[in-house]
Structure formats: structure tokens, C-alpha cells
């Protein structure tokens, strides 16, 4: 244990005495955070395109189909990528993972509850027959106020907290479509009310629809509040709004901690070339102690770097999440990143090879995982591939903490980062066995 402490202390001392390294570890990420926040503003000016939306339609009626078609319509093609799904549980998991911005869930009775005369319209499409007074009477009574205690929800919007912009866009589209329907419903209600006062009258259903729309639009122009029989539920908990300064502070910290971790791994090869590693290897210590000590030192440096960046970015208003979850996340991510550094050190032949690999992996991983822009805008397959980098897990984890998720809810992501770390260390151990006969 004493030897581990000796090795760790040495690594930290060396890292924090290197002015160049300090600039790279601390100053650069802070400056980039400030620059990104200043450039894009503090709020949600994320680029908006190709927002993945899942549509689960359990209703066979025409109104739910109309909503699905609205999301799939040509004017919205660049804005949203709508995908019809059938498995609700799987769809919710995909939203949880951030693979989709939201799930629009249309219940089986959507059309029926939205407009009870739907079956009559369906019948009217095939044979236009005048409505009888009895039919109109039945329709009129069906438009009564919702029963007390009844579930007012017609549509559920299950949203990803990490895709706040996508959620907002989906909600706006859905609201617009539903509002249009509501206006029509109210128009029908009004016209039916008039017709019901004259049950002897007979009406052509198509004329009835045209009349109801006219009346509905008139109601909208009068800006009278429409009593919502439609309730929109967004399962987004108590989320904080997206802010660039939060996102970039955490993502830049993770990115530059990756540089530290890969450089730390590389320093093992530098020590071999400078002669200090051979000298260590002939000291009365097991090689595994030396390697673990080295990596512990690199990890300690990474933890200190992250903590300093966390507290320093707080001074410019960045929020990473509650203290305990952030500390846990920092530890998990540093362990993961150090594993990647060890992997590179274990398999690179020379310091320059390790430097090239470390920089390449960090930068490409950073780009793929969303260190420079929100990862939600990346294609799904890129998001999946990027989960092989610590950056992705870091961004996913901090995004959730920043949104207000509890530690327990983020535990699967922390486990994912640690699982990736384990994989890194196993591959690294094979490399070390080959290179250093450890």
C-alpha cells in the first residue's frame, strides 16, 4: 500500500508540475467551455434536424392515423425522423437511452374518445346517407363533459430528458395537430348543437363537417379558451432546461481528462525509454504493483483534474449535477478513461505511436460521442458505436444529472462505463503481458 501511495504521489507531482500539461488539463477546457457557451448562448440553441420520434399507434381509427401521417408528412421530413413501433416497453427503453427524442403513444380508444362520431364518418365515406334524428341525438349526448374522475389523457408523449429540443419540437407538432382536431371537434359540437335543436332536420354528413370546421375556426379566431378534453402528458420528470454552458463544461472536462489518461498511459512507455521503468522493474517490487501504482497515479491526476474543472466551471455558471452523483460519475469515468490509456500503453510499441493513438482515439471519440455538439444530433448507429469511448458515457451520465435524474436512475450508465473500463483493462493486461512480461 505504501508503494502504491509512493507511485501515485510521484505521478500527481509530475503531472501538476508540467506547465504545458496544466494548460492542456485545466486552462484549455475552461476556455473552450466559455467560448462554446458564449457562441451558442446559455440555452437550447441546439441545431434542429432529424429528430428521431417513435410512434406507437394502438388506434385503428382515422384520427390517430392522421397524427401518424402528420409526423411522416413531407414538410416535416427534415425536421423529424418518424418511426412506427409496436413494442411499448422497448420503445420506452430507446427513449431512455436517448436513441429517440420521444415516444408518441396513441391509445386504442383515441379516435373514439376524440370524436365519437368517427364510425359515422367512416360509414359516410362509403355511402352518404342523411343522418336520422336519432343518430344526431345520440351524437349530441356523446359530446357531454367528461365524467368526473375519468382519465383525460388521450395522447402520451414519453420524452427523453437528454433531448430537450427534440422533445419540445415533438410536443409542438403534436399540440398543433391535436389543437386542429380539437377545433374541428368543437365545431362539430357546435353545429350538432344547432342541428339537435331542430331534430326534424336532416343533414348531409359532408355538409356537417364543412360547417363544423367553419364554426371551429371561428371559435379559434375569437381566441376563446378551448376547454381541453385532451390532456398531454410528458413523462420528463423535473428536468432542468438544456444549457450549453452545462453541456460543454462537462463534455470538455471529460474530453481533456481523456487526454490526461492517454498521456498517463503513454508516460509508461516514456519511462521505459528514459530508463526509469527498467530501474523500477529491478526494485524489489512486483511488476503488477508498479503497473497498478502507475495507473492509480494517472487516475488520481484525472480525478483532481475533473474536480478542479467541475468547481472552476461552477464559477462561470456551469451545473454538472448534485455533488454525490457527480463525484461518483467522476470516479467511474476516470477509471474508464485510465483503462483506455492503459490499453494504448499496453499495445503501442513506442511513445510516438502511443501519442498518435491516444490523440486520435480521444479526438475521434470526442467527435463521435458529442463532445463538441449534442450527441443526440448524431445518427443512431454513430451514437451506438461511440459507446465504446468513455466520452459517450460521460456525456450521457452528466446530461442526466444536469436534467435532474437521481443517482439510482443513472446507475445503468455508470455500470456501462465501468463495464467498458473492465474490457479496457483486460485487453490492456494482455498487452502488458506481451510487452513487459507482467
Amino acid at each position, binding site marked *: 500500500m505504501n*508503494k502504491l501511495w*509512493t507511485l501515485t504521489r*510521484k505521478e500527481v507531482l509530475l503531472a501538476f508540475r508540467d506547465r504545458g500539461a496544466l494548460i492542456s488539463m485545466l486552462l484549455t477546457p475552461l476556455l473552450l467551455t466559455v467560448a462554446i457557451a458564449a457562441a451558442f448562448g446559455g440555452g437550447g440553441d441546439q441545431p434542429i434536424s432529424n429528430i428521431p420520434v417513435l410512434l406507437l399507434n394502438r388506434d385503428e381509427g382515422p384520427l390517430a392515423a392522421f397524427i401518424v401521417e402528420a409526423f411522416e408528412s413531407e414538410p416535416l421530413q427534415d425536421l423529424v425522423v418518424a418511426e412506427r413501433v409496436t413494442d411499448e416497453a422497448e420503445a420506452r427503453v430507446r427513449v431512455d437511452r436517448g436513441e429517440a427524442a420521444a415516444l408518441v403513444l396513441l391509445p386504442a380508444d383515441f379516435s373514439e374518445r376524440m370524436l365519437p362520431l368517427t364510425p359515422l364518418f367512416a360509414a359516410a365515406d362509403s355511402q352518404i346517407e342523411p343522418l336520422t334524428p336519432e343518430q344526431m341525438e345520440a351524437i349530441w349526448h356523446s359530446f357531454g363533459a367528461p365524467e368526473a374522475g375519468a382519465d383525460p389523457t388521450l395522447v402520451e408523449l414519453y420524452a427523453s430528458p437528454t433531448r430537450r429540443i427534440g422533445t419540445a419540437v415533438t410536443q409542438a407538432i403534436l399540440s398543433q395537430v391535436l389543437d386542429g382536431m380539437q377545433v374541428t371537434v368543437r365545431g362539430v359540437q357546435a353545429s350538432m348543437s344547432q342541428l339537435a335543436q331542430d331534430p326534424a332536420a336532416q343533414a348531409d354528413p359532408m355538409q356537417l363537417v364543412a360547417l363544423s370546421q367553419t364554426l371551429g375556426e371561428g371559435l379559434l379566431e375569437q381566441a376563446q379558451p378551448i376547454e381541453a378534453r385532451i390532456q398531454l402528458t410528458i413523462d420528463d420528470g423535473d428536468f432542468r432546461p438544456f444549457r450549453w454552458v452545462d453541456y460543454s463544461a462537462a463534455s470538455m472536462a471529460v474530453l481533456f481528462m481523456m487526454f490526461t489518461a492517454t498521456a498517463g498511459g503513454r508516460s509508461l512507455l516514456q519511462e521505459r525509454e528514459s*530508463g*526509469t521503468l*527498467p*530501474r523500477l522493474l*529491478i526494485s*524489489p517490487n512486483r511488476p503488477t504493483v508498479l503497473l497498478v501504482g502507475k495507473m492509480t497515479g494517472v487516475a488520481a491526476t484525472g480525478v483532481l483534474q475533473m474536480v478542479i474543472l467541475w468547481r472552476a466551471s461552477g464559477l462561470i455558471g456551469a451545473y454538472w449535477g448534485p455533488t454525490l452523483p457527480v463525484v461518483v460519475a467522476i470516479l467511474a469515468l476516470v477509471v474508464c478513461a485510465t483503462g483506455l490509456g492503459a490499453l494504448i500503453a499496453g499495445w503501442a510499441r513506442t511513445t510516438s505511436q502511443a501519442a498518435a493513438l491516444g490523440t486520435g482515439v480521444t479526438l475521434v471519440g470526442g467527435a463521435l460521442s458529442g463532445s463538441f455538439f449534442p450527441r443526440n444530433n448524431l445518427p443512431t448507429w454513430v451514437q451506438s458505436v461511440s459507446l465504446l469511448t468513455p466520452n459517450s458515457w460521460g456525456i450521457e451520465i452528466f446530461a442526466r444529472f444536469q436534467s435532474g435524474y437521481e443517482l439510482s436512475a443513472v446507475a445503468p450508465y455508470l455500470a456501462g462505463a465501468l463495464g467498458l473500463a473492465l474490457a479496457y483493462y483486460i485487453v490492456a493486461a494482455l498487452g502488458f503481458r506481451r510487452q513487459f512480461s507482467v
Partner: protein
Amino acid sequence: MAIVTVQELGKRYSAQGPLAVDAVSFEIHEGEIFSLLGPNGAGKTTTIAMLSTLLQPTAGEAWVGGNSVRTQAMQVRRSIGVVPQELALYENLNARENLRFWGEMRGLRGSALDEDIDHKLELTGLQDRAGDRVHTYSGGMKRRLNLAIGLLGEPPLVMLDEPTVAIDPQSRRYILDWVKAMRDNGQTVLYTTHYMEEAQELSDRIGIMDHGKLIALGTLAELVQMVGELETLVISLGEGERGEELAERLASGEGIHEASANDGEVTLNVASAQAVLPQALAEASALGLAVRHIEIREPNLESVFLHLTGRALRD
């Protein structure tokens, strides 16, 4: 009593590669300075690397303090201090921090380590610069610190691999005196060098290595006896002139046993320098070479090496 026993030790870095160390056998006695002398690439460093357990031998066996370097590496490491040829130091730490780090890695702690560090700083003359980072030191100061680290904990056997390479004469003298003091202190020293003068000055016994083989072993007197009554005649040529052709012409001359050329110098092992000198000067003149300096030396390790290999030690 032998503190190191080496039997038929061999090392081949790759299956098809040449033997870096080829069936080397010797013993080092407790309390002596044993030097391995040889040109660069002779196998000295590889031998030390195997004895210090950094490299596994591919043939033979060696024991340090009775422990096998193959199977009891940890026990071997506890009993040795190694001063590598490279400056194995952390340049962004100061001298005291370097000594503390390496001392702790040897398992030293507390006041014993503090005292040892102070003692080593005093010996190296680095007390006044102990708080300065190593990258601000001169080459000689770094060499001294490199040496001091290897001596932390006063190990019974110290291995020094070319400790005086590329340093100023003052630091070199400092180190040589220190090595003698180690012997006086009861420590055993394994010293490698390609400087004949150092081996002659320091060593109780000397092993001469060339191309991975131990080609001679003994005290200085025993080794010199190998060349009998021969004298060494060294002819230094003018600046930029090469002596290969002159050495070739003289090699078959009467009374000349060996001839070699290196860096504008022609070295001859001769029965009588006085007898050979006129012929050598005539040949040089015939080749248009300017003779700048002539030196006649008593038999020494240089002439031993020339005698054994047909090459000067610095070839």
C-alpha cells in the same frame, strides 16, 4: 567467498539473432571491485541486466547472494543496488524527492530514509541544490544523483554500468573515488566500463569481454602477463589522417605482434619499440602521413585487448 556466481550465462534477444552474451562464466568475491571491460556492444550491459533480473537469461544460470536470478528475482533485487548507464531520474522532481521516491520503492521509510537521503546528498555535494528540480542540473550532477540512488539502503552488491560516460573530469574523479569508498565500506562492486584507465585504477579483478564472450579474466598483473614482455607503440597521425593502411603494412613487419588503427592512431604490440620505430616512420612517410606524436607504453589492458582480439579497445 563468492557473492555472484555466473555459469555459462547466455542471452539471445531473438531466436535467429546473434548471442549478445555467449556462455559467460565468472565469480565475484565479496568486498572486491570486479570490472567488466570491453568495447561498446561487448555484452557488458546485457550481463548486468541479467544479473539484476531485468532480463531473463536464455542459457546458463547465475546466483546473486546465493539466489537464482531466474527463480528468486525478488530476493536478488533486495540485495543489489543498480546504477544504470542511462540517467534514470525524474527531471521534474528535485534531488531530495528523487531520492525519497527511489528509497521508498526500495522499501525504506521513516528516519532511516531521511538520514540516508541526507547522507547521499552530502556525498554527492548536492545539499545546496537538493530543492532544485533535476532538469536544472549539469550532466555531472545528474550522474552523481543517478549513482546516489543506486546506493540507497547500502546494498551489499552494487552494479554500476558505465557510470562515467559523458561527464566532466571532476565528476568522473568524484565517482571513481566513491566507488573505492564503497569497497572500503565492505560493499562489493560490479563495474562495467570501456575505459581501460578506470578498470586499471579501480579493479581488484577484471573480466575482458568482446562480442559477448569473456575472453580474459584475472587481476591486472595476471592479464598483463598474457602479453609477456611486449611494449605498446602508439603513433598519432596528423589531423584527419587515417592509419588503416599503415597498420596493415606494419602488421607483417619483423618484431611486430599486433597492429591496429583507430581514430588517427596506430597501435602496435612490439617486442622492442626502439627496433620497430624507424620502420614505422619510414612506412608512414612513404604513405604521405604526418606523424604528430609517438608514445611507448608499458604493457597494459589496451595491449592485452589488442593481443587477444587484434583490435584496439576503442575499435
